[in-house]
């Protein structure tokens, strides 16, 4: 499990680099865009996804833990987190979480 950063969408703001608890994200020298240098060291905490305002970072499960190519990104709007999940066949699902409400469980 790890993340991928789409260089076409990355604005190079560096917010994700700042918060990664493993300091695994680095800046490309020429483009200033961010890339993950150590994808196998990602904890999967999604801190970087939550920082990205450009939907550039997607989260996936490694094949060694049952991953089959489904990806996920998150967008924050008005105290809601919208988790966008895309399956390899193109099917999409959005799960919205109201951050002002507690978990049911």
């Amino acid at each position: 499990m790890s993340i991928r950063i789409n260089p076409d969408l990355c604005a190079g703001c560096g917010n994700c680099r700042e918060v990664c608890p493993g300091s695994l994200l680095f800046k490309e020298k020429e483009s200033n865009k961010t890339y993950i240098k150590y994808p196998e060291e990602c904890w999967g905490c999604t801190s970087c996804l939550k920082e990205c305002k450009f939907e550039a970072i997607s989260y996936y499960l490694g094949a060694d833990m049952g991953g089959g190519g489904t990806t996920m990104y998150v967008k924050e709007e008005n105290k809601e987190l919208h988790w966008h999940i895309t399956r390899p066949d193109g099917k999409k699902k959005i799960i919205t979480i109201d951050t002002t409400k507690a978990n049911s469980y």
Partner: protein
Amino acid sequence: MDIKREKLYTDILIIGGGTAGCYAAITIGEKSDKKVMIAEKANIKRSGCLAAGVNALNAYIVKGKTPEDYLEYVKRDANGIIREDLVLTMSERLNGVTRHLEKLGLVILKDEKGDYVTRGDRNIKINGENIKPILAAGVYKHDNIQVLNKVNIVDYIIKDNRVLGAYGFSIENNIFYVIYARGVICATGGAAGIYKPNNPGFSRHKMWYPPFNTGAGYAMGIREGAEMTTFEMRFIALRCKDTIAPTGTIAQGVSAPQINCAGETYDRNYGAPTTANRVYSTVEENRRGRGPCFLRTKGIGKRAEEELLKAYLNMAPAQTLKWLERGAGPSEENVEIEGTEPYIVGGHTGSGYWVDTNRQTTIKGLYAAGDVAGGCPQKYVTGSLAEGEIAAEAVMKYIAAVLQQEVLCEEEENKFREITGYLKNPSGIYTVGQLEEAMQKIMDEYAGGISGSYGYNEVKLAVGKNRIREILKLAYKLHGEDFYDLMKIYELIDRLVVAEAVIAHLEARKETRWHSFQENLDYPGLNDKDYFLYINSVFKDGEIRIIKRPLVDRRQTYEHQN
């Protein structure tokens, strides 16, 4: 390489800006104008255990219960080996820190009367996705707190068994820091990555405990001869298979029992329902050919499933993704479970610094809070906050009576040469990754890892000890290109130092006190007569020396004797 050198001064240095560290800083910020510095190797906004969030607060004194009740629960779960003074002083503060956390911005579910809604006997329901940004924002409110993000501390500055500060470096800007402080709180967290993990390949860091908590606080203390306690009580979590996501949310949330491959519930067949026995029962069912084991969720219904998908996004998003990836959620398929690799983590078991009741370690002026502090299991989030508060109050009193001191420039220079020496080592055959893999394999095979169902014997431990020492020698020869590499080298060295201490502790407890957590195959039974005590240790003259100490009672205020 151009290396800058900076000397900094503060009243109180906090090493590690996770749960306990941030709360200690907030406590000092609210109660005094003393200068505080947090040195954090990542960024306090998302560093430590709470990066992804947390699903509930699991240490809270609910209506009708008392701090003594919480103590009794912890004592039962740890089979008697706890520091009652520490657990009680923590328990008394659990509700106060919870209210404070709510004021800082945490969403806690309340009923129509305004009381917190409980989940079980000790838990309350929250939205904990943003708990770490909330704590970080609480820190940044105070002008007297300075945060050094991306600064990795590697050793204390010590003179006559008193802490004077710490050495470290920026992993981004090639700056070597000498930080002097009148008092220091260590809040680095515990140690993951010592044993071969569940997912040893690409997803090697998909583990329960943060893989970036590498035992630095323990190792720094061990190197300076600080007394440590209960490292033999390792923590092994019962988790959802592959994603290593929490099981408690399902088990408690939708009352899902543990079942074996035949659909039989089994956990009550293995003694008291302690945290250790929940793991042990699953391990044993697998060993006896009745695996895989599951949480029986089939039939919980679509509404419950949707709530679980959301709950996991707030703390362990991989599990939600896994359900969606499979196209079958928990209402259609039972959730497979497994035990993790062992961790050393004082927030769940008793491993860590041997502290007095005020959380001062055996090094004067050095306090410990959270996962790095020993003797006080089941702290979880609120207990770590409580310990941060206790340590903060104690260090404020301590610094009122001490002046800032420095060591000789020569000593600072020697440390600079030692730390930056890795940049001058020639590139060798081995890398940090290779040696880490070797360490994890040795610990797995010889010190009670997953592959041996967590069991070990003395002969295996002796082999393991020698191999860990050999790997440590190789680690001292590693080459780093820059300060980021230097951090990785120190993380490996710290893990190896902790690994050797774990082996010494496992060897010293000649009984089996906690199944799976400490499964001594030479001594499979309990031995209350000889081992109803703490196993402590001190590193001296290149060897780990074991000290057995009698239990401390709840009415006692424990002080170090020397």
